[in-house]
């Protein structure tokens, strides 16, 4: 666990940089985390995914998987990889301020 300052706010993060408390998140913090992770600008397409993911987490307590995102968010899986390179579900979760998805064991 560590703390880091994004958009001028001190945030508690887990070992991999995920927000400990989703309630601390703001869109400005999301933009700052994105920039620190190689995404300088968040487009409308990014925000569709980020809002969908965050709302799903807040209403169900769990983040959707990549394939769940592809089926339900309106953004196909291939595009998810373009928007959030390498691990879209993980990176999008980090940017939208929710815990690391644990759907895969």
């Amino acid at each position, binding site marked *: 666990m560590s703390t880091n300052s994004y958009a001028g706010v001190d945030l508690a993060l887990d070992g991999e940089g995920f927000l400990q408390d989703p309630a601390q998140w703001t869109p400005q913090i999301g933009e700052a985390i994105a920039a620190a992770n190689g995404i300088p600008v968040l487009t409308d397409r990014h925000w569709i995914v980020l809002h969908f993911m965050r709302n799903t987490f807040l209403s*169900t307590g*769990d983040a*959707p*998987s*990549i*394939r*769940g995102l592809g*089926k*339900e968010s309106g953004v196909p*899986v*291939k595009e*998810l*990889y*373009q928007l959030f*390179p*390498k*691990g879209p579900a993980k990176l999008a979760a980090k940017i939208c301020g929710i815990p690391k998805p*644990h*759907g*895969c*064991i």
Partner: protein
Amino acid sequence: MPSSRRHIVILGGGTAGTIMANRLARHYAPDLEVGAIDISVVDENDRHIYQPGLLFLPFGMYDAEDVVKPRGEQLPPTVHYVQATIAHVDTDAALVVLEGGRQLTYDVLIIATGTRTAPDETEGMSGPGWQERVFDWYTLEGASGLGKAMATFNRGNLVISITDMPIKCPVAPLEFAFLADWYFQQRGVREQVTISYVTPLDAAFTKPAAAQALAHLLEEKGIQLVTEFATGSIDGAAGKLISFDEREVAFDLLAVVPVHTGATFLLKAPGLANAMGFVKTDPATLQSKHRPNIFAIGDATDVPASKAGSVAHFEAEVLEQNVIQFLAGEPLTNTFDGHANCFIETGFHKALLIDFNYETEPVTGHFPFSVGPLSLLKESRLNHLGKMAFKYVYWHALLPGYDIPGVPTHMSLAGKDL
């Protein structure tokens, strides 16, 4: 009084469904006798497959007939076995509708329909080369076909790939890689065969401590590890795996683990199941998040535990008690901790053992088993013998729903190096 008879309907006659039917039939034996309760198990076919055995088919260690028995024979005579395809569940009317129109009403529904591989979720997977050089060895047909292809494979690239998580028995693809190294050495062609392990994860396994030990074993055995590879499509004609971010891995023979989904009827059940058809389930009580009179167990749930037979076995004790409390109108007081326990076959008649739950990672140490300690996260011959003996335990103790001596439902920290 037939009007007061209560119906327990179990969907799925695999590992989890069979264990539940046996446990509940024992508990409710007097009620079944007088007709106060009846229990039905629905499955679409009568082939109960010992799924851990599928791993050994491609290496000629087991035949198809070693791993299949009729489902009905694993159930007690007091339970109705209904062989039919499930069309849908009407959760408002508490009704299961079967193909052909037959309906089963329930007071308690237990969903134990497991998970299945869905090759068609990935572009090209079931296209050219399917069942020739591309095999889904999580099915009996695929594992048998792969066995034939392996027997004549003398040189080239063998690729073991996981398409996406979650999958059944997440250690099985690693075991496949370890066994392949052993198998080709036995056949004297190991130097002409490259073995690659391709995973969408950022490491060899989902749990960091185990991932490190397992990555080390892969390296020791000369198996290439390709991480963060999310398979977007397969070109069977050219022999290429292509990721969503356009990386490629070439293969001559592909042992693929396709995307997993829940049962077909759950894919069209929003509310009850998620987008992949896994039942939205309380991870502690195993009650559906959608309706209180529905429970789920085993691979069919969306709980963050391994999709493995050991998990179904541990869940069964909790679920039995909760179903009994539910039918008695009492609050549910039994909780599942995510306990999983897996042997990992590593070739050369050795195996590892891992033991973990929702909160505790697999670590080294020893497992205080009734016949002597088994080493955790470390290769040993005794672990291998445990793995091979498990087939007998499966049919004769696990499916009938007995507790396995020395293997408690809740994970114990005893012996673990924490």
